[in-house]
């Protein structure tokens, strides 16, 4: 009775055991003589075949640079890439180059993981909004895949509601007025995502109202400033006073889908979503600046930079610098921008013929670039994930109705101060 299944198990065991032994053979080393092998970790932050786009770009580098071979290693999302980098550093096996969040710089500096890249940044001619501020007197990351917070609106719905489809709302009060008119078409006026890392969509509103959420030194935050309170009050009013936004927490991934399905006429989202929104929407899509509080336009930036790691051999360092310069140069920046939806990182990238042709075809793609003149640095501190958790849960507790604005933001400020206090001594 037991014999047959036992044999089946035994067969499976021996067959797989053989396979396991075969797997023990180490991967063949591809190293050629006189070729520097670089390891380059990169995350994927936007949906689509981005990993292949990156492989194509890196292959181009390899073909045009004899003597250097870059191994591009997909490493998950930004958090997973950071985890992989940290593990590799502590295991004595750092990558040569990696793309990580621009905001990760304080924690990377604290880990003594990265080297400054002042020369590359200065020579690159990047938009200042993408490199400022300096940290400890240096530039650490080279802008690579960056995005801004923009407002998307449904031009067809604007026409139906009797609004001017050539631009979105210019101010917070226009946002409310437009939203109320659009509401009559049977859709929401606006949706602003509020799950996950909501600080990112929230920060431009606070900045417009008068103050950034973070300082430039990595040890100070301004979570309970009058500006932050005004901004959060405005968000609450959108739902509960003006009734132009659904109440409660709105998921980041659903907001573009709601926009494409005409459940909402406007959304606040990343410029990185533009390609998929333009592809999926069956109506004319407008992209505009974030509406200003009174008169001051502002926006936030996000995304990843190229970093150079410490503790790699001198020949690797030289090759890695060549690679970073090439990847961030105007031609590659334009190529990458067109295929991913990230902003071109320098005015020269913007001037590339390929980029100009793209803008002619997709005029909306110019909006995030023009917006860079009004962009403010993204909240960045030491112990970044903890600090993000503090502000995100404070905002979400207010949206959820569990806390008042003043109580939540005051508590968040206290918690963040406690987290950052040890770093102020240094």
């Amino acid at each position: 009775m037991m014999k047959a299944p036992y044999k089946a198990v035994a067969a499976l065991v021996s067959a797989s055991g053989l396979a396991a032994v075969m797997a023990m053979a180490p991967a063949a080393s591809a190293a050629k003589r006189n070729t520097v092998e670089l390891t380059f970790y990169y995350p994927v932050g936007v949906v689509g075949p981005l990993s292949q786009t990156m492989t194509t770009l890196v292959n181009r580098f390899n073909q045009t640079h004899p003597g250097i071979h870059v191994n591009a290693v997909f490493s998950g999302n930004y958090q997973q890439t950071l985890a992989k980098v940290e593990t590799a550093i502590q295991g004595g096996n750092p990558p040569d180059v990696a793309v990580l969040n621009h905001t990760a710089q304080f924690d990377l500096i604290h880990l003594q993981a990265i080297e400054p890249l002042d020369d590359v940044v200065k020579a690159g001619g990047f938009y200042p909004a993408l490199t400022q501020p300096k940290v400890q007197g240096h530039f650490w990351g080279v802008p690579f895949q960056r995005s801004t917070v923009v407002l998307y609106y449904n031009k067809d719905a604007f026409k139906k509601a009797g609004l001017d489809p050539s631009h979105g709302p210019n101010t917070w009060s226009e946002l409310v007025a437009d939203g109320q008119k659009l509401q009559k078409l049977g859709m929401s006026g606006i949706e602003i995502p509020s799950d996950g890392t909501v600080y990112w969509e929230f920060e431009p509103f606070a900045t417009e109202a008068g103050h950034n959420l973070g300082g430039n030194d990595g040890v100070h935050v301004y979570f309970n400033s009058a500006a932050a309170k005004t901004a959060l009050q405005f968000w609450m009013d959108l739902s509960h006073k003006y009734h132009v936004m659904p109440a409660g927490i709105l998921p980041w991934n659903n907001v573009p889908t709601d926009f494409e399905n005409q459940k909402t006429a406007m959304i606040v989202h990343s410029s990185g979503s533009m390609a998929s929104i333009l592809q999926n929407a069956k109506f004319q899509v407008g992209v505009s600046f974030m509406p200003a509080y009174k008169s001051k336009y502002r926006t936030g930036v996000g995304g990843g930079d190229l970093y150079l790691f410490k503790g790699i051999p001198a020949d690797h360092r030289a090759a890695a610098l060549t690679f970073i310069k090439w990847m961030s140069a105007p031609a590659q920046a334009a190529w990458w921008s067109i295929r991913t939806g990230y902003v071109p990182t320098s005015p020269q990238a913007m001037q590339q013929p390929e980029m100009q042709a793209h803008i002619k075809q997709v005029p909306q793609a110019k909006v995030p670039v023009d917006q860079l003149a009004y962009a403010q640095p993204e909240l960045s501190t030491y112990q970044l994930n903890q600090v993000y958790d503090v502000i995100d849960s404070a905002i979400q507790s207010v949206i959820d109705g569990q806390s008042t604005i003043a109580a939540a933001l005051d508590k968040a400020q206290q918690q963040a101060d406690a987290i950052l206090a040890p770093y102020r001594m240094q």
Partner: protein
Amino acid sequence: MAVNGMALGMRPGKPSTLPHHVASRRTWRARLRQAVLWFVACVWGFPTLWVLYETFFAGAGRFGFTFANLAQAWQVAPFGRYYLNTLVMVFGLLAVQLLFGAVVGFVLARYDFPLKSVITLIFLFQVVVPIYAVMIQDYRMLSSLHLLNTMAGVMLPYTVSGIAVLSFRQAFRSVPRELEEAARLDGYGTFGIFRRVYLPQAIPAALAFAVVSVTYHWTDFLWPMIVTNTDNARPVVVGLAMMAQASESGMQWNLLAAGTAIVILPVLILFTLATRRILAAFAATFNW
């Protein structure tokens, strides 16, 4: 099994010789139980059904059927290679885990020696401590063994499984000593007894452990992601991760669903075919 058959479809509608009010109460109870089971099954099954719907029907127009989503997702990553790697790692690991589990479980179940309880405790400890607590140490060890970026490196920290050891130990302990003595009288040595008397009794345990191991390692993501760099050593979930990241954009649900389908379909089919045996093995095994 009888309970399952009852719950999942048989209707108690046959004429009954019981008094009317008793029969109707039973019918009523059975219906309620059926309704509750259906409800729970729907809640549990919904995500999978939604994935299959998005994969095969999204964007296909009304009542259409399409392979376009699957084809598009298949393009995003070298899934063929990833499947091969996953099969080698998952079943190779299972083979090694079963081997060590059976041998160690046998020794723990049938022999007495000093510090036996401490050693048993160490295996229990291994069940409780997640790999992520010792990840950096594991990474360093693999680095010094030159096993980073190999399938062997992904598998090595998992080769001795506390769950396997304890499951086999429990299965072997329930074998009556008389059987062993009878076999000895028939002229079997220790290995013969292990193979002919004990191992056959442990097949449900092996099967139940196999389910746990395969489902865990089929979807294990962060560890393989951290120790591997190239397509030669990466599992199929890495391919899914390539299209599941949308922190800086909106999500394309059809693509995400198709990627999920690529990962789960083989396991889903396998488990659907073997549901009965798996349930029986689970009931017999996880009582330690």
